[in-house]
């Protein structure tokens, strides 16, 4: 280490030499923090998104590296949010990449006391069978002599974080199956 480097490594020197007299800025940065880089700087790509919590609709920039979300920031371009996010929006990374997520299908058989594993394909097939059976059992061509052409055999309740496209397919499919008890958080 040369003398010059040694002197410049001394924060007090930097405070005077670089005009940061009160030592509140770059002058007090240590070598370790100087070498830190933000996850946003090393991301492979930034994807435009929208916060999934309340209905303000804040813009989000999703930073991705090696196929994983590494950071979620407010989008300064959004005319609604102007780059801001609230505590929930700021915690979005933990929502999408956190420890609380379950990523396997779980199955509880009737009277079962524990969860069991099931593969997704089998689960989908079983659910399709359940829908077909319950739909038939609950079928009503008419009620009190008036045509209803419907089933009371199954119901659905969706959250209001569903995309419009998802709601559209849910309503379309279940209506075609004759279900009418199709509801949403919007009622609640």
């Amino acid at each position: 280490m040369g003398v010059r480097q040694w002197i410049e490594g001394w924060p007090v020197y930097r405070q005077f030499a670089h005009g940061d007299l009160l030592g509140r800025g770059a002058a007090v940065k240590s070598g370790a923090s100087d070498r830190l880089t933000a996850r946003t700087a090393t991301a492979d790509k930034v994807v435009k998104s929208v916060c999934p919590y309340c209905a303000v609709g804040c813009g989000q920039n999703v930073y991705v590296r090696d196929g994983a979300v590494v950071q979620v920031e407010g989008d300064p371009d959004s005319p609604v949010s102007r780059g801001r996010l609230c505590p929930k929006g700021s915690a979005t990374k933990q929502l999408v990449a956190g420890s609380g997520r379950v990523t396997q299908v779980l199955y509880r058989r009737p009277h079962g006391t524990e969860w069991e594993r099931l593969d997704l394909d089998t689960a989908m097939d079983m659910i399709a069978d359940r829908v077909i059976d319950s739909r038939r059992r609950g079928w009503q061509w008419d009620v009190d002599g008036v045509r209803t052409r419907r089933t009371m055999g199954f119901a659905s309740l969706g959250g209001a974080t569903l995309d419009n496209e998802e709601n559209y397919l849910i309503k379309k499919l279940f209506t075609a199956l004759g279900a009418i008890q199709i509801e949403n958080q919007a009622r609640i």
Partner: protein
Amino acid sequence: MPSLGTSFGRGGATTFQQDLQNSDCIVIEGSNMAECHPVGFQWVMEAKAKGATVIHVDPRFTRTSALADLHVPLRAGSDIVFLGGIINHVLSEEKYFRDYVLHYTNAATILTEEYRDTEDLDGVFSGLDTEERAYDFHTWQYDGTEMRAASGERDQQYADQTRGGETVRQSARGEAHGSGGAEVGNPVRDETLTHERCVFQVLKRHFARYTAEMVEQICGIPRDTFARVCDALTANSGRDRTSAFVYSVGWTQHTVGAQYIRTASILQALLGNIGRPGGGILALRGHASIQGSTDIPTLFNLLPGYIPMPHARSNTDLDSFVAAESTHKGYWANTRSYLVSLLKAYWGEAATEENDFCFDYLPRLTGSHSTYETVLTQIAGDCEGYFLMGENPAVGSANAKLQRLGMANLKWLVVRDLSLIESATWWRDGPETETGEIRTEDNATEVFFLPAAAHTEKDGSFTNTQRMLQWHHQAVEPPGDARSDLWFTFHLGRRIRQKLADSTNDLDRPILDLAWAYPTKGEIDEPDADAVLAEINGWDANGIPLSSYEQLKTDGSTACGCWIYCGVYAGGVNQAARRKPGGEQNWVAGEWGWAWPANRRILYNRASADLDGKPWSERKALVWWDAEQGRWTGHDVADFVADKSPHYRPDDDARGPRALSGIDPFIMQGDGKAWLFVPAGLTDGPLPAHYEPQDSPFRNLLYRQQRNPVREVTQFVHPDNRLQPSGDEPGSKVFPYVATTYRLTEHHTAGGMSRWLPYLVELQPEFFCEVSPELAAERGLKHIGWATIVSARAAIEARVLVTERMTPLIVQGRRLLQIGLPYHWGPNGYSVGDAANELASVSLDPNSHIQEVKALACDIRPGRRPRGPDRVALVRDYQRRAGITERTGTEM
């Protein structure tokens, strides 16, 4: 949104968040915006920085109150009296915007001679059928013509408009009998506003008893505080100034909730604040796409674009349905083109002119089939399967226990979520397994938990609180078995269709004929969300994307999945994905995302200009008539026929949009006017009237009628849904306090998206109840200690937070102490606690079928709640002490 819909024509916020910066006065009521919509709140602060007065009306002093110029504490459940008092002040002091009121509202319209007001009938309106507990709305009509509703309970007029058409009993609620007729001719008007049956005079008489004294007695608001609100609002409304109202579920979640919003609608129309910059009513929705979930509904009573689901009739076909649901004038006159285009989107090639475009494939309603009725059908065993997609009713719905009992009686349950929420695990570790009411080994429900994909793992659009669609792009692939609901629904449908492919049974035709060929992509065969959006937008006979709902046809040559979203894919471009930076646009920012309808950001904005099409003032200019170009122009897209002159007057035989004149800004309404008085579309009255909450420590001082006479309560009589005595009834003193539920900024709704996030759990680690020092002293509660809160439904425990923020009020000469309860907790996740919704009863608003959780009479006591069966015994003990039977609280 039956209230905004019936008042103005569309069930959506009339304005957008950024426009709040142009307000001169903002009243936030039924909302803690700074806490629950903090980023949107920046626009309130922008207005304040420019000199606007900010008023917060709320039982609690909150983060919003802290930043307001004036906090007005009131008793939870008394807002109609407060707002009605302001209306009375505006009318009696002649502070209304006369030109606006006269020409843009139905103030001048004369009502039938048969109409009787709450003034005449001691608190109820004419047409009340006490047997059925329903109103016949006929006497609420205009003289000489019958209006049809653009929104709300449109089914009630079916019989009139189809000349017959018997419906199955329950769905006949509020339905027509006897008179009625087609909506033809013009309403009779009195331009002097002096005719005793004109809406303006009826309004004056109706609200005359909503005096400052009543506001003080019922809401607990001192007169000088009330006067300050009246002065701020009226001084900041008129040609040159505008005021805005902001509300959320603090208004909707009551047994008379729709009428809260109606009261604000009347007030804003009288003050001339609708359709103008800095004005309007901003409904703040609490979920990313609540607005979208009603626009493209997963709701029992609606098809996409607010087309009603058909009810069961003896003669239902496309013609009679369209005849019943169309209006004569305005845009609902085109109902047939919206519906036929939807049926084409649903059933494609199979939908033809000859088969009524498969109209018969639509299942029919026989009354209310809301989520709460569904729970009863589950308990009864009729509904045996249940899909929960991103919803946690075991915590999030009123009377959460009833929800769990419904689930416990299912054959199968599918839960799709990010984490193991309580609705997926009640069978092993729910409150009833602790009390012994559910034994895991005895319970036969088969449960599938399917992990869901997060918003970063899929493409799609949310519709935010200001009707704006914004596209979120997929960033990464979903992990493991996690899939989008788009994937789940598409592949479930595909499998069911495969399994039924050989069926010749007629009941399988609708599912087999369904247009269900969506392109998929990637290793997991994810359906292309862009293609679904394109179907929602619609296309013509050549498959070319449509650009406007004006292009929709009745002959089946156009398909469109949601007519109000038509244009979101104009030119084959995903308009919801537009992201021109806000800094490069004016404040309207019309090139960011896309808002329905037709990318208009302030609804009814024709009303921002005077009769001649000139802005009411330069300061409040938004859109105006450019006579040279022969077009409306301005900062926003005009919510009006672009080339309809303000001087246009229709012929008497004109129909549809052409039948509205150049001074009819409310283009969805059959008369083009804002409805101060709602002649059709609401089930509980043409005007708001104050009724006490279902469970209230007070009697109704305004009328002999205690509660909303047509609230939905008798169908929910159940041993686990007992109601409480109110007012002077014996036993009501057992529940002397009023609790209100609310949200914290660090948590989200029933906790499914927040209780599993370590950051958020660290910020708000535990369920608590907020009480005043007076209440703490009265009941011996210790700060940070435990309290047990009890209603006729449940006993829950919470940590005690003693603050001065819960202002004690003097109501009817008595000191009222209130309790605040955040409702985010349940037994699962990194932060656990009891669910506040255990306390609430299922008692619903008759228009929206929404539960009352914002005003609950209850008791509070020190210490933790009992464990095991003793918890149930404590509740039974309270019921006994209050003399509660199955009839208590069910009186009309």
